[in-house]
């Protein structure tokens, strides 16, 4: 395990520095306002750390939004694939993914944000537990570490957890509140995604049933596990969840997946907006309207441009479709 330990410390050491630099930096700011030894300055520093890390990941988020913007145009093709491979889930996923690759459009955020955040979370966890033993790490000096770990918060300290509360009821209450907040934000984010931003057909079938069950089981697992986490880590986790929730709210509102509840809600809002600005309601739903003429009239005849109906029609179609205008001339042509 020595070799693996080396790899671990190779990855973690820079992260200890990163986390401690941001944390100590925020503490300099908040400590100047609330006092270096006050609990509130450390609480705000942890929240500040979370915000800095999530803000640093915004470019990834923006790139993701951009690359999922054309999903709506891709929808007919996705439907076609569903019709073709609907019976074979594995093949359907393969083909859909291949389509995403071809078109350079992908609705998923990639694993990078997760992979980056996990070790940072771990680094904070370790920093806090080491600080509880009086040892600094990174730029956190032993003196600061002592302040950090013993920063008072509702009668306990930032490094205490529900299980390590040394009998303080108030600490247990704070820890439980944070565990509930953390679990609730996770749950709500996931449920919002499932109920608003997933097409109905993705929510049926055995796989979706399993997803739904996990939606309710996993928060319980986390709630049970959460009582072992120190208050400082729970603070980080909850703040980060709140950020995720906000981000997802933004996506669902402004960039919803096609064919979903959120998508229809956006269409309604757009139509409403267009009406208020005095446009015709058609202006609000451009997706279906604008696609039609381009696909149905590939080559309009030179004279057709000024006609009322530029659609390409056979003669028999024309006769049945609109018999009203000038019936005499049209019948005069045929004999």
């Amino acid at each position, binding site marked *: 395990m020595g070799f693996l330990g080396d790899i671990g410390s190779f990855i973690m050491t820079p992260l200890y520095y990163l986390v401690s630099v941001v944390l100590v930096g925020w503490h300099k700011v908040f400590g100047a306002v609330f006092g270096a030894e006050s609990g509130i300055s450390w609480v705000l520093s942890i929240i500040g750390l979370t915000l800095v890390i999530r803000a640093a990941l915004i470019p990834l988020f923006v*790139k993701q939004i951009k690359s999922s913007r054309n999903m709506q145009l891709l929808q007919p093709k996705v439907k076609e694939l569903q019709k073709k491979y609907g019976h074979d889930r594995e093949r359907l996923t393969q083909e859909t*993914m*291949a389509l995403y690759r071809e078109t350079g459009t992908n609705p*998923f955020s990639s694993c990078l944000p*997760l992979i980056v955040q996990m070790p940072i979370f771990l680094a904070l966890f370790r920093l806090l537990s080491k600080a509880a033993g009086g040892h600094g790490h990174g730029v956190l000096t032993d003196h600061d570490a002592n302040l950090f770990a013993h920063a008072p918060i509702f009668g306990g300290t930032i490094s205490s957890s529900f299980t390590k509360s040394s009998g303080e009821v108030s600490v247990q209450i704070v820890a439980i509140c944070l565990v509930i907040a953390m679990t609730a934000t996770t749950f709500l984010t996931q449920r919002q995604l499932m109920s608003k931003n997933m097409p109905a057909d993705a929510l049926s079938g055995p796989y979706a049933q399993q997803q739904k069950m996990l939606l309710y089981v996993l928060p319980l*697992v*986390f709630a049970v596990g959460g009582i072992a986490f120190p208050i400082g880590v729970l603070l980080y986790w909850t703040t980060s969840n709140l950020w995720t929730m906000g981000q997802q709210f933004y996506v669902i509102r402004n960039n919803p997946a096609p064919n979903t509840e959120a998508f229809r809600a956006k269409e309604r809002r757009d139509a409403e907006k267009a009406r208020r600005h005095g446009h015709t309601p058609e202006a609000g739903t451009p997706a279906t309207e604008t696609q039609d003429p381009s696909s149905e009239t590939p080559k309009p005849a030179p004279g057709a441009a000024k006609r009322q109906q530029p659609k390409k029609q056979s003669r028999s179609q024309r006769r049945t479709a609109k018999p009203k205008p000038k019936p005499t001339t049209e019948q005069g042509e045929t004999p």
Partner: protein
Amino acid sequence: MKYVLIGLLKAYRFAISPLYGQVCRYHPSCSAYALEAVTVHGSIKGSWLAVRRLGRCHPWARGGYDPVPPKRVPIDTSQQPLGHVNTTQGV
């Protein structure tokens, strides 16, 4: 070592992965890829493949269908993993 990694990956896929829904831009997803890679290629080469895949999974990548490469050494067919019997290379 191989079974430790497989255990860890399965635990992740059971307990943590569902929390985030699908985020991976590839199919199979990074964790499924890692699990298969370690199962097929062993802990060292499998981990290396998994790390390279994770490196590819960022918002600037196009994503797509990206299966674990099959083992080069000719082996008996019973060793073959599930997904490799009749996959056409999608891209």
